[in-house]
């Protein structure tokens, strides 16, 4: 596992990594959206199922959506069995992918601390640690002294407004360099013959009765055996075009980075209660995020008062950041479901597949999202890990409520 690589050792420039073909008239599978999930799906369709007559259509530039905007935290310490299994499958794939894709995307298993500041946080945290251990996910409970030992810059003084009462630790969790993940997947998908087509917006669907037979785009109609949506924040805009209503609300979620600092922050620290999360990127920026804006929105920016709130929390937790300057803030559009869990699987419309609702936390799932989605598209049957995440759960009531473990308020 690489750690703290100097920047001259970073992988080559992405322009050389894939072709830019014109769209063909027809494909076996069209994937809408070249974010991490769309690219991982294309890669595993080829690698696991031998399906290579595939196009990934992207209205902007490759991986320029939430994939470019996320804060790169990877962990699998979710509460429910279904989610822990899905995210742990991803974490196991993260552990082998750099080698398999022959591309170093700086996956760094530096651990993730989820801090507890109230008695209820302590109960939730210890319960999740126990659930994780029973499910084969690495998890530990740390008391405040152990928190200080693991991450010496956290303020564990009892004299602050919300003292640190303990934390969960997942040692195998960490961060990865998001654009390099996308480029690595894109390069391999391209090598299998998948067409990655940028600047190609899906504007409608071709239909025969209850069946989808392709898509309309700004570059003309393209027919397809199967159409698979992986459009994150825009899933309901696309679904509207085909008359499908989704239990999804789109919200702005923002993040920010500081100027470069020398390495001081050895792990990822998240706090649900005071609401900030911080890690230090390989180059040295502090990467910080907080909750979503309360209202629906598609403008890719967030409210300033959320930044103020998160900075106040960060300063109380990390007094040594008091003089760090903010370099840049940005926003993405996340697709939030009522139970804070994704939706993966077939739709009531034949040949149309859905992968959405990852909300604020889908980056960590990128490999398993692609793995289970590719299986579902290739076989027409949901992958066992994806089955509980079907759209029907909102009708049956078998919700997978992960609001507590999702770690970003929405």
């Amino acid at each position: 596992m690489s750690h703290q690589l100097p920047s001259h050792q970073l992988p080559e420039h992405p322009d050389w990594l894939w072709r830019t073909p014109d769209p063909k008239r027809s494909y076996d599978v069209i994937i809408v959206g070249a974010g991490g999930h769309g690219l991982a799906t294309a890669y595993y369709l080829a690698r696991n199922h031998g399906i290579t007559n595939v196009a990934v259509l992207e209205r902007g530039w490759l991986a320029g959506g939430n994939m470019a905007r996320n804060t790169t935290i990877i962990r699998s310490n979710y509460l429910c069995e279904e989610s822990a299994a899905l995210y742990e499958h991803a974490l196991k794939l993260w552990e082998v992918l750099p080698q398999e894709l022959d591309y170093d995307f700086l996956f760094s298993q530096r651990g993730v601390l989820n801090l507890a500041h109230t008695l209820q946080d302590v109960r939730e945290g210890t319960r999740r640690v126990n659930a994780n251990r029973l499910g084969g996910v690495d998890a530990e409970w740390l008391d405040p002294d152990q928190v200080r030992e693991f991450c010496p810059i956290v303020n564990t003084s009892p004299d602050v407004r919300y003292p640190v009462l303990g934390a969960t630790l997942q040692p195998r969790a960490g961060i990865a360099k998001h654009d390099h993940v996308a480029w690595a997947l894109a390069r391999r998908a391209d090598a299998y013959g998948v067409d990655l087509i940028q600047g190609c917006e899906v504007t409608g669907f071709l239909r025969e009765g209850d069946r989808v037979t392709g898509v309309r785009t700004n570059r003309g109609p393209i027919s397809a055996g199967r159409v698979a949506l992986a459009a994150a924040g825009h899933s309901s805009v696309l679904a509207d075009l085909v008359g499908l209503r989704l239990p999804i609300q789109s919200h702005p979620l923002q993040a920010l980075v500081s100027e470069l600092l020398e390495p001081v922050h050895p792990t990822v620290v998240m706090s649900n209660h005071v609401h900030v999360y911080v890690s230090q990127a390989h180059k040295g920026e502090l990467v910080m995020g907080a909750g979503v804006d309360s209202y629906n929105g598609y403008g890719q920016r967030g409210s300033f008062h959320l930044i103020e709130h998160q900075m106040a929390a960060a300063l109380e937790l990390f007094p040594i950041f008091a003089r760090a300057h903010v370099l840049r803030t940005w926003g993405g559009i996340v697709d939030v479901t009522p139970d804070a869990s994704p939706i993966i699987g077939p739709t009531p419309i034949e040949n149309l597949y859905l992968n959405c609702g990852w909300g604020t936390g889908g980056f960590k799932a990128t490999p398993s999202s692609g793995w289970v989605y590719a299986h579902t598209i290739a076989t027409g049957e949901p992958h066992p890990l994806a089955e509980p995440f079907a759209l029907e759960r909102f009708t049956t009531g078998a919700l997978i409520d992960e609001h507590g473990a999702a770690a970003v308020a929405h």
Partner: protein
Amino acid sequence: MLLIACPWCGEREELEFHYGGQAHVPYPADPEGLSDGEWAEYLFVRDNPKGPFAERWSHAAGCRRWFNLIRHTVTHEILAVQSNRPVAAGQPKPVLP
């Protein structure tokens, strides 16, 4: 930060308000008669347009009253605000565009 005109208190910062999601979602007229699918639709599915959206806000840190407004979900421009003031007898109810 949005500047929202509460129909009773005037323009205030977004911080004083609580968001209530889509407006005009009536409780089912015949709840007993609803299928599971229709219940799911009522409970979980709301519009999520990229454009004008009729939504509810409460002036939580002010007069605490609820009202509706129409906001553009890309530009955040507030296109109309509608109070829930009781309508005088004989007057038609205001209609949101």
